[in-house]
């Protein structure tokens, strides 16, 4: 039996986002159990534990499940991630933070147990600028770009990268923090209106996203110049603003929608069998797909581990090896029924951060769905590599961690 805990949040302020992710995560494992009899002959045991996006509950969930042979944690909250990094390091259990958490954990030399592929926030910032460069014929000088961000560690993540990039490309960066929870953003958007930035980037979460998009609609900010990070790019964020949100863009490292072969299997083996998680109404939404994607990576990691170690009932340490040698390529995704679903990437002992390739999606309000606008764009690896190195080395020194993979 392979145990995968799912630290989900179906309640609390971010429940609306937690539910689809948890459903997707669960449904994928159910599919493997139902269709393939688990992974490599081992059935999957997924333990769901409610965190309510609360760090203390997250710790409780971790402690209560780690004894059950948990193979990898997907804590789904930056706060909980930071609690768990030292704990998983001590306990020797892999931690996968899919496009969130601590960016510099991409450096596997320092963070042996932490994985954050396929892309990090810094990749996101870099890709956003790259995309804008593209739109402007490679030149952003003299342009003004505003960053509307959640005033927390998460929201502040891209600032360093963007500051570097603004130096490189000569655009002005306007920082506009929004305090939690972000229900009232009038002064932020009045400022946007006065300062007339050419583009607005957003690192938001929860209700902040909905209000920001609504306010942008209100001031008639051109939606196509408004780009959110992947946590600001779900149906939940745009729907409350109605038609006004049409054209809003968001980054993503996987595809939206249900046009994938795997959905056929899900339908036969999971939905129609009455085994869908939750209310069973989230299929194909961005966050459901993200849950699916996270589960897929976990499963592939386990498969890889089985392959390397030649045992089916793997240990967390073996799981780490599997995750560390993971290679997701087109062919494999096609096999899984997920052709083109996400970027290809490979990981190694030193690199836990994936390829850093991110696509831009756009909201089509009329059809009520997200559309893929670009291919997966490669982030500025040189710059990000440098930043990751700096930060992780500082962490290693502070905590007396020895570099591995030398």
């Amino acid at each position, binding site marked *: 039996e392979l145990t995968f805990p799912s630290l989900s949040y*179906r*309640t*609390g*302020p*971010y*429940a*609306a986002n937690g*539910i689809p992710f948890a459903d997707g995560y669960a449904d994928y494992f159910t599919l493997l159990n139902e269709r393939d009899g688990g992974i490599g002959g081992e059935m999957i045991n997924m333990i769901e534990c409610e965190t309510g996006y609360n760090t203390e509950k997250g710790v409780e969930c971790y402690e209560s499940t780690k004894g059950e042979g948990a193979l990898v944690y997907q804590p789904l909250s930056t706060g909980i991630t930071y609690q768990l990094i030292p704990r998983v390091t001590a306990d020797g259990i892999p931690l996968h933070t899919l496009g969130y958490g601590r960016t510099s954990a991409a450096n596997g030399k320092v963070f042996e147990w932490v994985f954050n592929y396929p892309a990090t926030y810094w990749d996101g910032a870099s890709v956003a600028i790259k995309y804008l460069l593209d739109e402007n014929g490679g030149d952003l000088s003299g342009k003004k770009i505003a960053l509307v961000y959640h*005033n927390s560690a998460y929201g502040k993540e891209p600032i360093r990268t963007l500051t570097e990039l603004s130096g490189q490309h000569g655009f002005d960066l306007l*920082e*506009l*923090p*929004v*305090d939690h*929870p972000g*229900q*009232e953003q*009038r*002064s932020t958007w*009045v*400022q946007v*209106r*006065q300062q007339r930035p050419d583009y607005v980037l957003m690192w938001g979460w*929860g*209700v902040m996203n*909905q*209000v920001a998009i*609504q306010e942008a*609609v*209100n*001031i*008639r900010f051109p939606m196509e110049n408004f780009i959110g990070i992947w946590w600001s790019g779900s149906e*939940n964020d745009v*729907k*409350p603003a*109605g038609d*006004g949100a049409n054209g809003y863009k968001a980054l993503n490292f996987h595809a939206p929608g249900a046009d994938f072969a795997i959905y056929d299997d899900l339908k036969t083996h999971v939905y129609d069998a*009455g085994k869908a998680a*939750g*209310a069973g*109404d989230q299929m194909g939404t961005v966050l459901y797909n993200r849950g699916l994607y996270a589960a897929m990576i976990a499963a592939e990691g386990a498969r890889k581990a089985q392959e390397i170690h030649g045992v089916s009932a793997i240990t967390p340490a073996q799981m780490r090896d599997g995750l560390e040698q993971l290679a997701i390529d087109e062919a494999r995704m096609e096999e899984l029924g997920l052709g083109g679903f996400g970027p290809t990437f490979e990981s190694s002992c030193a690199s836990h951060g994936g390829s850093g390739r991110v696509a831009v999606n756009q909201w089509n309000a009329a059809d009520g769905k997200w559309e893929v606008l670009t291919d997966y764009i490669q982030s500025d690896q040189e710059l990000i590599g440098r930043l990751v190195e700096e930060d992780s080395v500082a962490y290693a020194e502070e905590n007396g961690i020895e570099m591995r993979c030398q």
Partner: protein
Amino acid sequence: MPDQVLFAIEVMLNGLMAGVLYALVALGFVLIFKASGIFNYAQGVMALFAALTLVGIMEGQVPFEHLINVVFGTEIHGFGWTVPALLAIILTMVVMVIFAWLVNKLVLRHLVNQEPIILFMATIGLAYFLEGLGDMMWGSDIKALDVGLPQGLNTWIDETTFNLFGYGFYIDNLDISAAIIAALLVAGLVVFSQYTKQGRALRAVADDHQAALSVGISLNYIWVLTWSIAGFVALVAGIMWGAKSGVQFSLSLIALKALPVLMLGGFTSIPGAIVGGLIIGVGEKLFEFLVGPLVGGATENWFAYVLALIFLVFRPQGLFGERLIERV
């Protein structure tokens, strides 16, 4: 006029509007405080619950859908009808009255003549309960709420001011409706509480439960009445805020925006809620505009409280609150 001044005026106007929205939430608190001396921690959750119920009814959701599906293995997904906004609002009001009745029956009645802090605690219990109940009844997803109020930049103001100053002011239509509704509500409530027998009884209850009982005021009746009105105010606040951000859990957090307003205006004053709202709205927006950039922004949350604090140091009972009786 120089740009900065124009901007400041625009910021101020928007502050006024935001203030009205805060005041809408604060009003609910004031009502219940006035009528029973209870600081109703559950007011924010009530706004959420009211808005959830409204959307639920409008969209023909089946209450406890998920629970029913899990327990009975059914596949219910809504009644399949929609209800017009006005009717839904009325039905929601009925639900809120039932809620008020239950609160009185199950909670308040047993806590007559207790100290304020204990009643406060009871409302915390209520908030927890309602939080769980709301989610269980209507689900935790974000719901768009549209009762037909106009939203977005008001073109007329934009154009007029543009012609005048060469810079168009941004005022949200929704805020304008909120201001009108708030004005009506406040006027009505002021008349009710100051000039009617029930209003007087309400204030008497807040002062001394026992004495109120002894003159024949029925606490049950008064409490059902005020909690119903507070439920109505919560619904209005829920509609306004829900239209901005969608109806979701975070709606209950608007209570935090109402707190400084409440304290500045005075817990017992209905006009105080409005005036306090306006002062806080303008104050925090202007501060963010003028000082925010120097200190890194996102100052609104704490500045609202600091502003209230400054006022309170000079008037410890809030701007319009009743003077604390200090006698021996």
